[in-house]
């Protein structure tokens, strides 16, 4: 099923090699543009990594793209010996604390919406979630701030987690309903005949078959939460509640003269997500195209 659902989104049915070759022969112009864009994408990334291993004097005197003559991990030591590990843990707590409940409840909702197709009430709920896709997070931040204060959650990690869960729901439900719809009805019917309950079908049938989509929405939402800046900026205050993007920003203010150290912290905040990407790339890309194309 994993293959079936992801390939439906990325591969045309019955493509034949001859026709494909015509499409792929696209010409040197496309190729040149493609490689040029790669350069534009990679140059700043290369510069971040190279510079993060330079000391201050090398940063000021060396060619910006030259490899460090005398590579140093001093910048990384400086960052790690600051409160960085604490911010890292905060980010992990907020990200995990968001995506696990968010994906679980979105999955349940998506299952109910697909299985209850025809119910006016569920269709209405689905419509509400879809409308949520068009609500900008920023636009509701002031009442969310008020709500969090009134719930006495201001300046806690929970203050970041609860709104993040809510804002993960619309897209998660959209992608998950698209995937669950692809599960053949006959499978549900035969399980029903065997006496399975809705919970049983959700767990034994829908869950394994939608695993790629679950990974997709987890990574996608995780990315958004991990990189989130606005909620931590507004809903927390104490330095010990900072998450990585906010810490990066304040760090930049403190060490604005020490660019290599700032870039080392950029690398350190990005590394975990790059590793996650490397692990879940296939599902992420196929899920995204399934969720958005057409």
């Amino acid at each position: 099923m994993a293959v079936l659902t992801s390939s439906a989104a990325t591969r045309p049915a019955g493509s034949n090699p001859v026709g494909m070759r015509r499409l792929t022969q696209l010409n040197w112009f496309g190729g040149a543009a493609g490689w040029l864009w790669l350069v534009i994408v990679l140059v700043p990334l290369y510069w971040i990594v190279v510079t993060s291993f330079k000391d201050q004097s090398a940063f000021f005197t060396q060619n910006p793209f030259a490899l460090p003559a005398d590579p140093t991990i001093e910048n990384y030591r400086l960052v790690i010996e600051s409160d960085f590990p604490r911010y890292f843990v905060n980010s992990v707590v907020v990200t995990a604390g968001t995506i696990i409940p968010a994906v679980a409840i979105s999955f349940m909702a998506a299952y109910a919406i697909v299985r209850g197709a025809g119910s006016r009430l569920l269709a209405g709920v689905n419509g509400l979630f879809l409308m949520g896709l068009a609500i900008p997070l920023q636009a509701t931040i002031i009442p969310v701030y008020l709500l969090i204060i009134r719930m006495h959650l201001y300046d806690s990690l929970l203050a970041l987690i609860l709104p993040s869960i809510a804002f993960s729901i619309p897209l998660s439900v959209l992608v998950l309903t698209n995937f669950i719809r692809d599960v053949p009805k006959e499978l549900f019917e035969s399980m029903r005949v065997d006496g399975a309950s809705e919970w049983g079908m959700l767990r034994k049938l829908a869950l394994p078959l939608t695993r790629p989509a679950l990974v997709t929405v987890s990574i996608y939402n995780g990315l958004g939460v991990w990189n989130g800046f606005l909620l931590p900026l507004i809903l927390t205050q104490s330095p010990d509640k900072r998450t990585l993007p906010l810490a990066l920003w304040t760090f930049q203010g403190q060490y604005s003269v020490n660019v290599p150290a700032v870039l080392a912290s950029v690398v350190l905040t990005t590394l975990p997500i790059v590793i996650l990407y490397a692990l879940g790339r296939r599902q992420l890309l196929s899920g995204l195209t399934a969720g958005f194309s057409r």
Partner: protein
Amino acid sequence: MVVPALAMFVVFGIVPLVGVLLLSFAQWDGLGAIHTAGISNWRTVLSDPALPHTVLVTFEIMFLSWAVQTPLSLLLGVFLAGRQRYRALLAVLYFVPLLLSSAAIAITYKALLDPNFGLGPGLHLDFLTQDWLGKGNLAVGVVIFVVSWQFIPFHSLIYQGGVRQIPTTMYEAAAIDGAGRIRQFFSITVPQLKYTIITSSTLMVVGSLTFFDLIFILTAGGPGDATRVLALDMYKRGFQANLMGPASVIAVLLVVLGLILALVLRRLGGSTTASQQEGA
């Protein structure tokens, strides 16, 4: 089974949406008591001589970033839809900017474009050595470049998916009729991608309303008010000037604008879904 998700979404999504409308008629400094204020906030904001400029900048950045990103994403997407192994590798590498937080990207570009210690002076290239973030037009250009750097990879992936759904028989038929590659591109690829173009454009246009962290860190709205977009304006009024009422008015304007743009684009293309989520 739908209850937990619905409850969370209503409490932190729908209630605040109603709340922001109510707060736009209230007076609140963010800490103390909330008083009703009638339509005074609306009058203040709508008669603010700075507002048209903010709206103009918002639309300028929205339109220009769309105009830069769409053709490039389309071309890259068509190119990536090919099948050679190295194109798969390119698609992987293209994705990397999306993994960086806007904060990290803004900080990086701030350092790269520094007129004293950035790339230009480092390479002794005069055309790169400018006060990029200190001049209005240049700063707008930088914002658009950085946004494109961050999001073209994502949109080219959407286009890549779209191109692969075009039946190859159409190209074969066109080739038999003697249509060249450029002709095929404009007569088959572009029309067939209509819905993909609308989806991608909706994401770009509506998403551009939410550019906050990138601009906040890169330029803080400056120089002057050259890059002060609506979302930033809302933050400054609400959380820096402690005027939550007027800030809520801006928030309501953002919601209305987002919904209108999403609906207009949907009308253009039949049925698509819009997302406000960053990066989506």
